[in-house]
Every structure is written in structure tokens, then in C-alpha cells.
């Protein structure tokens, strides 16, 4: 059995078990879920250890350099003169995906731990949770566009219900907003996917194919197909390949999210229950970044090169705009949600630089943000669960009341604002270094973007420190008075058990970024090479 397949479908299996179990056993569900995620984590660690690095295992556009590949026929439809529509179950990973898969597995364990707070309708929650888990891992492993799309869409529904059923006051609005936004992106992605499918032919069989890797090879395109690299077809008067790129980019950009496609995020995050916020911020945002790297850059490299300026611009705008918005929030969770926008802007900036440093930095930033946003949302959840309030101005001087909590908050805040020694620093610094390098190496970005991006670091410090000052320092005053004071107990051992590994991971990755870079590096180099800076 292929380890990736196991990794993808283990949660589903456990989810089915939960569905089939009687509801009277509902208190065992959380343990079952935890078990599932732990098994998954174990598998992913095995995966990580067995993952071979080196240029011969770089992945990206060479199918035989992917690892843990499984490819079997799944759907084959006979469509007359168009030949057979062959859809494969094709999974495999390269350096970029392995980072995402391992990160996701870790985050899933923490999310499972965080979901112990869920009280109502446990069966539904945990089965949806595990379904979502399957979909997420599937997205990172799929190498067949169709399969990718299936997993991509499969994430929507569980999330809708997870936000909508277990969320906060405005959960309906948030859930539907999230769903509509994402579906909007993905429906058009479907159109482009079909266009690509009909443009690309598998050289071995002569049939059209959904194979992402073959979509990367310009030679596989039919000479007069829409997305042919040579034919220069137009769609509604615009170059077809550019349109395709933009559509795919928008679909992923909604996920990332970039300004101005981001407004679903604060709502969704604020309303979602803690474990779902964790998954949303920790993993789902990365699906966007991953998609941009794997699909937008992979399939439309020449558009990515010519459009890098705009990508970078959007990235910079996201960094600054997200940070400014975070500065203006008084809901702690909203603040963190906007900080995600800002942090993911670095990912986009790094990718747009099209330099190995920038893209590696972007991947690192995604991994790091995975851990740190998990931590941040978990921490918000802690205080929210105790007093059901998150307004920054309703708290003051928590530092003396909850010292352990404050310690973790400080670790998470400082790690997030890019304090050296933590992973976010490496990610942000190298995204920026990539952006600084870009003008002289490939001219993709101008210098001022890098400079503006750096200002984001400053703003990041501003909103995090301001929050620390307002909420945690100073003398203790709480809006809820004595009741709150009693309710606000310090972290319990489960919470520490969840947070500690994340803090350690963020620290370890900050000190030894090679844990990520060694796996990622060959793939990034291959990607940069492939994009055309040969």
C-alpha cells in the first residue's frame, strides 16, 4: 500500500468508523480522532525521514523524480472522437509538497486536540473534521489536476458545516461567504482545467490528460489548442494563457488570501470554532500558496515571469494592507486573521521574486505560518473559551493573572512578528532577500517592492506589541470583574501539551531551517530552472 494513499485515506477510514459508531459512545470520538491524526503524523514522519533529496529527486516537472508515486486508472470515459477521457489516481510528492504534508499532519494533531472543547454534536464534528483532513492531505499529494480539483472542492463542504454549525454568532454569514468566495474561484478553475485538459495530450497514449506534470511541458500541447504555447490563442481578446493564469491565480488567491479577495477570511476566522480556525489558517491558506507554486507557476511559467510584477505588487499590498487592518482591530481573533493576510503576503512576494531564495522563503513562511497561526488561534481560543470575549480592550494585565498563558502568547507573538530564532524570521527574511535579489537577477520585481515589504515587518511588530501592551501588561483590569478573574485560569496541561510542540517546532525551524530547506531546495531549484532562468 502506498504510504501517501494511506496518509490520505486513514482519516477518512476513521471518519467512517465514527459515523458507524453509536452516538452513545460520543466521548470516545475525540480519542479516535486524535488517534487518526497521530497515525497520520507518524506516517508523515516516516515519509519525511524516507524522503530523498538531491537533484535526481527534485520533482516539479519531471515525473520520474517524484517520490512515493502511485498511479492507477480511476475514471475512463469514452468520448467518441475525442478519445478516452482518462483520469488517474495519481499521487506523489516532491520537496514542496513534503513540507506541506508534514506541516499539515502536525497542525491536524493540534487541531484535534483543540477540538476537545467542542461540546455539541460530536459525531458530526469529528466525521467532518476527518473528511476535511483527507481532502487537505489529498490536495498536497495530487498530481492529477482532476484529482487535485476533487480534493480541493472536497474541502469546501466540511468547512462550511464546521464553521456554520459550531461557529460564533455570525456563523451563517461567515460560512456562506467563505463558501461562495471559494466556489467562485473554483468554478472558473474548473473551466481552465477543462481547457488545459483539452489542450494537452499524453505523448505516450495520444489521449488528453489531466496530468499536471505533462501540462508543464509545452511540447505536449496540441498545436492549435486554446492554451497552446505556440498558437497564441485569445479569449475575449486577451491572450488565452494569460487568462488561464489569471483565473487560476484568482482561484488560489482567494484561498491565500490576497487583498482584495480576502474579506471572507476575517469573518470565517472570527466565527469559526478554534480547531477550524486552526485548520483554516494553518493549512487551508497554504493550499492557495501551494497551488500558485505548483499549478500557476508550473503550468504557465512564462506568464508567471511576465506577471511577476503584478504578483509582487499584490503581495506587497497584502502585506501592508493586512498589517494596517490588523492594527485597527479590537477583536483579537480578527487581528490575528488580518495578520495572516499580511504574513501570507510575504509568501506571494517570495514567489513573485522567482528566485530560489524567495521561493524557498515562501515555502518556509508557509510552513512557519502553519505552526504559528495554529498557535495564535489556539491561544485566542483559550481566552475565548474561558470568558467568551475576545475584545482587546476588555482585558488588561493578563500577564499577572495568567503567566504561563502570557508566556506562550509572547512566544507566539514574537515568533510571528519575525523575531530571529523563530521560523517566521527565516521565512520572511528570505522572502524579502529574494525580493531584493530579484531586480538584479531577473528583474521580476523592482527594489521598492522589497523595501515596502520590509515595512510590513515593522507594522507586524507594531500590532503585536500594541496588543501585548494593551491586553497582557499593565495592572489587571477585566471587563467582567471578579467572575472573569475566576474564570480565567491559567493553561491546563492539555493546552500546554498542544502549544509546547508548536513553540518548539517554530524555534527548531528557526534555528535549523535546514530541516525544511534541505527537502525543499532541490525542488525549488528545479522550479526556478524550469521557469526559465536557466
Amino acid at each position: 500500500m502506498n504510504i501517501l494513499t494511506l496518509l490520505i485515506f486513514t482519516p477518512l477510514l476513521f471518519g467512517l468508523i465514527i459515523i458507524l459508531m453509536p452516538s452513545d459512545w460520543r466521548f470516545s470520538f475525540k480519542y479516535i480522532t486524535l488517534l487518526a491524526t497521530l497515525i497520520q503524523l507518524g506516517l508523515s514522519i516516516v515519509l519525511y525521514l524516507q524522503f530523498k533529496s538531491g537533484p535526481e529527486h527534485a520533482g516539479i516537472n519531471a515525473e520520474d523524480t517524484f517520490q512515493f508515486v502511485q498511479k492507477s486508472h480511476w475514471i475512463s470515459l469514452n468520448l467518441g472522437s475525442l478519445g478516452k477521457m482518462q483520469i488517474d489516481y495519481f499521487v506523489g510528492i516532491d520537496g514542496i509538497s513534503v513540507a506541506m504534508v508534514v506541516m499539515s499532519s502536525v497542525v491536524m494533531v493540534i487541531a484535534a486536540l483543540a477540538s476537545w472543547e467542542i461540546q455539541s454534536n460530536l459525531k458530526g464534528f469529528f466525521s467532518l473534521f476527518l473528511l476535511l483532513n483527507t481532502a487537505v492531505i489529498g490536495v498536497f499529494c495530487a498530481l492529477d489536476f482532476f484529482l487535485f480539483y476533487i480534493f480541493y472542492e472536497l474541502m469546501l463542504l466540511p468547512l462550511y458545516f464546521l464553521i456554520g454549525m459550531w461557529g460564533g454568532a455570525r456563523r451563517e454569514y461567515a460560512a456562506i461567504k467563505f463558501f461562495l468566495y471559494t466556489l467562485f474561484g473554483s468554478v472558473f478553475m474548473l473551466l481552465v482545467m477543462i481547457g488545459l485538459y483539452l489542450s494537452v495530450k499524453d505523448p505516450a497514449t495520444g489521449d488528453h490528460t489531466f496530468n499536471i506534470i505533462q501540462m508543464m511541458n509545452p511540447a505536449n500541447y496540441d498545436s492549435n489548442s486554446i492554451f497552446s504555447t505556440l498558437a497564441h490563442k485569445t479569449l475575449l481578446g486577451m491572450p488565452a494563457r494569460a487568462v488561464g493564469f489569471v483565473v487560476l491565480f484568482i482561484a488560489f488567491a482567494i484561498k491565500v488570501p490576497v487583498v482584495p479577495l480576502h474579506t471572507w477570511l476575517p469573518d470565517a476566522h472570527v466565527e469559526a470554532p478554534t480547531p477550524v480556525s486552526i485548520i483554516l489558517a494553518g493549512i487551508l491558506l497554504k493550499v492557495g500558496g501551494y497551488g500558485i507554486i505548483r499549478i500557476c507557476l508550473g503550468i504557465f511559467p512564462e506568464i508567471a515571469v511576465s506577471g511577476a510584477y503584478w504578483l509582487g505588487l499584490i503581495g506587497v499590498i497584502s502585506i501592508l494592507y493586512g498589517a494596517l487592518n490588523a492594527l485597527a482591530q479590537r477583536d483579537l481573533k480578527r487581528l490575528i486573521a488580518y495578520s495572516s493576510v499580511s504574513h501570507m503576503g510575504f509568501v506571494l512576494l517570495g514567489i513573485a521574486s522567482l528566485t530560489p531564495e524567495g521561493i524557498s522563503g515562501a515555502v518556509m513562511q508557509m510552513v512557519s505560518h502553519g505552526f504559528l497561526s495554529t498557535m495564535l488561534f489556539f491561544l485566542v481560543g483559550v481566552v475565548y473559551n474561558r470568558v467568551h470575549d475576545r475584545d482587546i480592550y476588555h482585558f488588561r494585565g493578563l500577564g499577572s493573572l495568567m503567566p504561563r498563558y502570557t508566556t506562550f502568547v509572547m512566544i507566539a507573538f514574537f515568533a510571528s512578528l519575525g523575531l530571529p530564532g523563530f521560523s517566521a524570521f527565516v521565512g520572511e527574511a528570505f522572502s524579502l532577500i529574494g525580493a531584493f535579489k530579484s531586480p538584479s537577477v531577473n528583474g521580476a520585481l523592482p527594489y521598492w517592492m522589497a523595501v515596502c515589504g520590509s515595512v510590513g515587518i515593522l507594522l507586524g511588530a507594531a500590532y503585536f506589541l500594541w496588543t501585548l501592551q494593551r491586553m497582557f501588561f499593565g495592572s489587571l483590569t477585566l471587563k467582567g470583574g471578579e467572575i472573569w478573574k475566576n474564570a480565567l485560569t491559567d493553561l491546563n496541561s492539555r493546552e500546554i501539551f498542544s502549544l509546547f510542540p508548536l513553540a518548539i517546532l517554530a524555534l527548531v525551524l528557526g534555528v535549523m531551517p535546514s530541516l525544511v530547506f534541505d527537502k525543499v531546495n532541490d525542488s525549488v531549484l528545479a522550479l526556478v530552472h524550469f521557469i526559465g532562468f536557466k
Partner: protein
Amino acid sequence: MENFLQAIDTLTIRFALAAVLLPLLAFVVNVCLPGKSNKAAGWISTLAILVSAVLSIFVFSKVWNQHQVHQQQLWFTIGETKLYAGVLLNNLSVLMLLLVSLIALPVHVYSTAYMGKDENSKRYFAYLSFFCFSMLALVVIDSLVLFYIFWELVGFSSYLLIGFWYTRSKAVLANKKAFIMNRIGDIGLLAAIAILFTVYHTFDIDQLFGANALVRTTAFELPGGWQYVAFGGIALAVAAKSAQFPLHTWLPDAMEGPTSVSALIHAATMVAAGVFLLGRVYPVFTESELTILAIIGAFTAFMAATIALTQNDLKRILAYSTISQLGFMVMAMGIGAYSSSLFHLATHAFFKCLLFLVAGIVIHEMQHVKDEYKLDIDPQNVLYMGGLAKKMPLTFISALIGGIALIGLPLTSGYLSKDGILIQAFEWSEGKSVLFRLIPFGAMLTSWLTAFYVTRLIVKVFFGEFKLSQINPGIKLHVSDGGWQYKLPMVFLSVCCLFPAFSLNPVLYEHAWLLNGFPRITGLDRVNIYHTIVPAGLNILSLFVIYWAYAVYVMDKALPFPEGGWIFRLSYHEWYIDKIYSKIIVAPVLTLGKLARWFDINIIDGFIHLLERIGIAFSKVADWTDRNIIDGFLHLVASIVLGIGNFARSFQGGRVQYYLFSMLAIILAIFLFKILI
């Protein structure tokens, strides 16, 4: 032989690493210790820094004026760039290593008494050790990325320590301000590092700025003048970390932290990191860039000194004096007095640390008085002090030594370093236009101002009568020098402030051993005359100033109660000078000081606050945009959808004949359309 040498080098590296890592170990151990306050914590940290200091001495002895030792190891690979982590030991780094550990040691000892009773002392020592680790690491590492990392970590530990009493809102505001201002500098540094990397494809300090400096051998030019951004970035970083105009305002505020912290971090070591950075990347600067640095430094020095004149908060006076002295160092770098700048860095570290420790003791005792009589006073206000010299003689003597060193009178280390800078400043301005002359003369003026405010400080604190007793006779002053943990560090530092620590010749700065460790400036001609005139003029006038200040601050009050004959003898004379100068000089100078203070509060801080407000205003705008424009667009889309839906629905009135009519009408429309086209 070769092997032997290498073995020695390896040992040196190991010792240096151990010296760096021991405080880290102490930090980890302290974090893991149970309880909030733990006696052991202080001693663990002190022990660690003691061993570090010993190891540093060894490392210093192996490296100073010998070959440089550089070892590195692959850290990680990103793209095709390999990042190395390593230790680079040359004269600069071992000097700093030694300096930092030697200063940190007495501060630690002092802290065991000063902070030992605080309920969070464990946390304090953990932070302190963490700072030592970051600072020691900052001076020895060899890669710009690592440099940036520790650069920011020292800022971070300073943040932690400033806000150590996190329940005080002033402290929390101060540490936020400190961190964010430092962040501004960090961005500059990061940008500079990135630009350097872009051009030279390496982060290695030795390769970039070492013996065969890449920055010298390869053209450092980028289109659009972006290499100036690199310079600007470094200048910004220096300004932020070393509290130079216009990013200096965080430092006075940072005095909200414990005084021991101010002594170590905000006087001696961390703030000097900016000067150290200049020393590290020195080859990258061009002539004009250096001149800009000199101007910044000179201006800062002058401005801070004028502000210090009128301050009443003991620590703030010292803080402004630190800014002023840092200005001297930056100016020295700017005029090319590389070695003198570092020399001044070293001497300043000792005497300023000493002064802060003294201040700490004084404040500590004042706090006692305040607590004992439940007074509503600021224990740091010099106006409430006075006459402490008799009660705490050792403290007084230490303060005196420190003060004299700060003024730069002969026989002290300060004389050696500061006069060196001034002399070289004159030499530098030789042959340049008159405007450049402003710098040495400004520096000279600053020196005299220094003399004035130092005298004022010492006089206010130690001479005369205890002011509180004058106000309220019930208050009895029973203060003392404190335990050995106070005395020992003071004695040690006092000794280090005297000339023998640096040069056997008390008069000629050029004989200082420290200066020989660094490259001499070749560009400046030695103008002998300055070597006599400048020190002489400077010191003589300084003495006058001191006396004058003494007269102003002591005799004003002392005249009705004549005590010492020599004061009384000169009283008439003094009165005359006072009468004239108070009109001509004192008033304008004080006004200038007030003006500068006002400028500082309203313009510079005002500007910062303005920026803050603009930032927040922008954030409000962004928030509004998000809620109204972007989401508004969404709502517009939604209402379009609903509008179309409503239009489609409007036919569905439930009347079947109307349905038929609509149907036929549409078909007719289609048909007409068909006819028309």
C-alpha cells in the same frame, strides 16, 4: 607546527563558543528553575558570566594583535547559496567579547543584590543571561544573517528587560517604543544585508569586509543608486540601536527598566552595538557617507548634551549623556578615527556603567526613604537629593571617578579616548571648508557642556544638604553604600576608569594599547599642534566650567552657610561671573537645552507620534475600506443578483393569462429581433 597552531585555534574557537553559550545555558537553566524568585538564579547567571569572562580573557590573549581566527560550518543551503554559521575572532570581536563579559560580570554581581529581592528575580536573571548570550554572540559571529539575528535578539532582550515590571504602564509603553524604533533600524539593516547579498552573493562578514574585502575589490554599484539604500539602511540601523538622531528618543524612555539593566544594556553594551556595526562594515562606506555619519554623530552629541543640562531625573541625565557620548563615537567613525571610536566605546562602557551603578544605589536608597516615610516623590529626581557624599563615601568616590572620566579630565580613561577623538576631529577638518570646522568645535563645546552637567549632577546628588530633610526635618537619612555586591563592582569599574587600564602614559592617547590593535588612519596628517592645544584648552576650560557649575549649584545654596574657605574666598568673583554669565551664557544655554528638550518631545517624538497616528489612521482607513468598499462591492454583487432575480420573479404574478402574454411578447421580441438583423 601548523597542526599545533590549528589546534590552538580550535581551542580558541571552542573557548569563545563556550563563552557565548554559557549564558544561554544559564538562561535555559533559569527558565527551568521552579518558582518565581529563586536565589540560585542570580548565582547561576553570575557564575556563567564569570566563566565567560575568564574564557574571554583567554580568547583575547590568544587573538589580540595576532592572526585572526575564523571557523565556520554549513548551516543550511537555500537555492544555490550556502549559508555558513561560524565564529570570526579578530581584534574587534575579541575586544568586544572581553568588554561585554567584563562589564556584564560586575553588573551581574550588582544585580544579585539589586534585583535579588524582586519577586520575579528568576525571570530577571533569565533575561539578563539571554541578553549576555545575544550580545556575546553578536560580536563573534561571522555571517550577516546571524548578525541580524543577534542584532534583533539583543533588541528583544532589551525589550524584555525594559518591560520587566510589566505592570507599570510607563515601562510597557517604553519597551514597545524601544522595540518598534529598533525595528525601524532592523528593517534598514535587513535591506542593507539583502542588497549586499544581491551584489556579492555572500553573507560572510570576513569575505565582505575582511582583509580582502569584497566591498573594496568589487564595485558596489546598483542601478538607480540602490547602493545608497544599503548605506541608508546601515545608518538607520546604527541610529536606532545607538540612539542617534532622530531615532534616539527610545533610550531616555528605556530608563523605565531596572537600573542595572540600564547600566549594562542601555549604557555600556547594546547601545554600542551600533558603533560596533559601523566597525564591522567600515570598508563599505565611501568618503561622503562617512561625512554624513560624522554630522549625525556630532549633532546628536551636541543636542543630547544640551538636553542633559536641564534634566532632573537622574537616569535621564545619564541617558542623554549616553546618547551624547554615542554621538561622539559615531562622529569618530565618521571622521575616520576608527580606532579612537572603539577606544571611546570601551572606556565609555566602563565609566557609564559605573555611573549607572552609582545611580542605582542612590535611587535604591531614595526608594527606601520614600517607602519608609511614605512620601509622594520620584526617587530618581535629583532635586530631592543632596549631601549624600558623607553617607555613602564609596559611592561618591566612584561617582566622582566616573564623572571625571566622562568629562575627560586627565588621569582617566575618558581623557585618553575623548581627547583622541577631538584631536583627530581637528586634524580631519584641517584643510576643509569652514563648515566642516563646525564638527570639531561643536564637539569641543559638547565636552564643556558635558563637564557642566556632570558637575551639576554630582553636586546635586552628593553635595550640600539632603533636600528632603530641608523640606521635612523629620526625615532622617540613614543610607549607606550597601553590601559587597554593590561595592565590589563599583571598585572594579572605578579602577577600570583610570588611565592605567588603558595606557601607561596618562597624557598621550596614542600610547594606549587598545589603539594599536586597530588600523591607523592613513588619510590624516598628524598636526602636532593640536596634540597639545586641544587637550590643554579643553581641559582647562572644562575645569572652569566645572567650577562654574559647582558655583552655580552649590554656592547658590551654600553662600548663606559658608563651609569651606576656598569657596568663600572666591565667592565674590563667582558672583560676578555668575551675574554676567547667567545672563549671557547660562540663560541662553538653559533655554537652548529647554528648546532642545521641547524639540525632542514635540517635534521628534511628536513626529513619531504623528507617524503613529498616521499609521493608525491608515489602519482605520484600511479597516473602513475592508468593511465598506470591498465588502460593499460584494454586497453590490449580491444586490445585482437579487435585482435580476427580482426582475425574473416579477413576471410570476400567478395570473396565467399574464404568463401567456409575457411569453408571446418575448417571442414577438425575438422575432422582431430576427427581422432586424
